[in-house]
């Protein structure tokens, strides 16, 4: 125990004088977290939380176009623009404005849309009346083809966005059509008493589709947002950068001869590795804690959401210690296998970057192609992130942590064993 503690103290003295190493471990992840959270803020944001400017070119001026405009405005997501430079819009300006990327969409309602809807409503009402034995006929003509409400999207807008808008517009028009049909039917049957009319709106929504939140009561963390993804992800990445520091230190130790001096002192060498491990695991925990503080207090200063912790964050130490152990063990392995820093550093840096990429650090795992998803099982970062998401996003319990924690501990043990084996091989014991 004294030997472990002595090694711990030694590592502390070495670390506190290593400004380069400290900034790599603390400054770099803070920068990464801030920049990545900012960069990825937009793609992560739901369309719900954004406001769009939509151009409206209304040549119809009828009931239908009123309904559409009312519907869009009531949703609160659209600012409708009806004029361009104090001039009424026309299709030419609309197309050029959209092309220039100034607006996300334009809605063009051609002349005759309302009358076409009335016509088709009359047709339907007549047809229904016939079936119900209500005599009479509302004026109608043949339906005209090709009168459509047109939407123009900015070419860069995402398919999901386009679908959402088209659906919304179709919903508005259907509702108006339904309204008119009901009107017509009451007119046919001679009941002009509108006070008894059904609240169509309400009835149409009697069965709807509604999204349920998984954790309504606990903390209101429902969805991954940029901060919620990037803070843990880059904190993990930063913790794995310890691999570089540890391997560099170990190689310097060996080159300088301290390694041999350590080995010429009686007592198990494994104590010294334990002391090293203890120090770096604690350092990793401090790193993570700092990143959490940055997430909670610094992110809002950048105009982003604050990192939400929730109650399950109480279990964070379990997963964070496992992550730090894994990073440390990996560093000890690299520091044992390679003899020079010029070999070890590129290997350490590149492998951390690659493992992060397939582990879902750069972009969420779900976005990765299937082949990489399979590979990600091998990445300690994947299990690290999964463990943290279990707590921060899914509000999981201790038993949900079992899998990621065991995988990380297993990987640490495997790395330590390989380091130990390599060391013994080098000193001619196996």
């Amino acid at each position, binding site marked *: 125990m004294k030997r472990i503690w002595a090694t711990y103290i030694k590592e502390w003295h070495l670390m506190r*004088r290593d400004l380069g190493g400290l900034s790599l471990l603390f400054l770099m992840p803070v920068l990464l977290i801030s920049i990545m959270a900012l960069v990825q803020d937009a793609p992560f944001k739901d369309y719900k939380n954004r406001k769009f400017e939509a151009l409206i070119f209304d040549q119809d001026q009828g009931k239908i176009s009123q309904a559409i405009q009312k519907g869009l405005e009531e949703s609160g997501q659209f600012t409708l623009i009806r004029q361009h430079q104090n001039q009424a819009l026309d299709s030419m300006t609309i197309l050029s404005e959209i092309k220039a990327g100034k607006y996300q969409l334009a809605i063009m309602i051609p002349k005759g849309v309302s009358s076409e809807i009335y016509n088709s409503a009359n047709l339907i009402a007549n047809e229904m009346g016939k079936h119900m034995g209500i005599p009479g006929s509302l004026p109608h003509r043949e339906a005209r083809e090709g009168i459509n409400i047109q939407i123009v999207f900015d070419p860069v807008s995402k398919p999901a966005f386009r679908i959402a808008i088209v659906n919304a517009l179709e919903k508005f028009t259907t509702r108006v059509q339904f309204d008119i049909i009901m009107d017509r039917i009451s007119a046919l049957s001679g009941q002009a008493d509108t006070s008894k009319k059904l609240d169509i709106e309400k009835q149409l929504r009697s069965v709807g589709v509604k999204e349920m939140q998984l954790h309504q009561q606990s903390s209101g963390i429902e969805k991954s947002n940029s901060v919620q993804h990037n803070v843990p992800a880059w904190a993990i990445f930063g913790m794995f950068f310890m691999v570089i520091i540890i391997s560099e230190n170990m190689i310097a130790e060996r080159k300088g001869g301290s390694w041999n001096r350590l080995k010429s002192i009686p007592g198990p060498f494994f104590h010294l590795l334990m002391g090293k491990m203890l120090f770096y695991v604690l350092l990793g925990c401090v790193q993570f804690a700092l990143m959490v503080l940055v997430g909670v207090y610094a992110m809002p200063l950048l105009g982003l959401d604050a990192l939400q912790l929730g109650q399950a964050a109480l279990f964070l130490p379990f997963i964070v210690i496992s992550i730090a152990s894994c990073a440390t063990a990996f560093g000890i392995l690299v520091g044992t296998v390679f003899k020079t820093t010029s070999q070890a550093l590129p290997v350490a840096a590149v492998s951390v970057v690659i493992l992060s990429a397939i582990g879902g650090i750069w972009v969420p795992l779900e976005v990765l192609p299937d082949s990489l998803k399979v590979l990600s099982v091998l990445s300690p970062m994947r299990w690290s992130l999964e463990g943290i998401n279990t707590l921060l996003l899914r509000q999981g319990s201790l038993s949900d942590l079992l899998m990621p924690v065991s995988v990380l501990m297993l990987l640490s043990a495997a790395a330590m064993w390989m380091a130990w084996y390599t060391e013994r091989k080098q000193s001619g014991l196996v």
Partner: protein
Amino acid sequence: MIRVSGLYKKYDHAEFPSVDHLSFSFPEGCIAGLLGPNGAGKTTTISILSGLIKKYSGEVEVMGMDVKKHAEEIKGKLGIVPQQIALYLNLSCRENLRYYGRLYGIPPITLGPLIEQLLKRFGLQEHGDKQIRHYSGGMKRRANIIASLLNQPALLILDEPTAGVDVQSRNMILRFLKEYNEEGNSILYTSHLLDEAEALCQEVLIIDQGQGVIQGSPAKLIQEHQTDNLENLFLKLTGFRVRD
């Protein structure tokens, strides 16, 4: 104190053995010199004696114990001063010594005074809190020796302790070795500085290309081979070919 017979060591992937059927012994309580040109196998031999190299053939006994069987016990009684400065350059001298001392299991109550006494003995007391990287070459060498004295070894092995050291530091080191020997401890040191060895050692072994060339007390060897000093004897025995 040391008995070696038929020692043979070939590194993995090496073409020739670095130590080739070497046999010698040094009596207890003497200052012994292991001499030879560069690449003769001095460092390899010392590493085997101190248990750092474990793959070799032949028999090696240190302080009456087989190195393979009693490695831990020997380590406790042995001090080894490597050729390199085996200290953490970013730690101060005191921090280095404290660390190594604690690894030996020396309790803080005795470790503190011991460190101060050794620093004083080597003229480093004033510089004890300076980081090693700020030390001069001679200071580094002295600190390197102190770190190997913490367990007060009965046998001190030094690998070229005076190579590249200024005259004052060298003088201090040599004086220390004499004193330490007079205190009843054995010393084995390697060098290629033959006049130094001639003056210091009671017993020398000259090796070349991993093989023993000659062993005995310097005075006797010089007399027997009718040369004026150890250097001439050395050249006579190992030849004039320049070594890499």
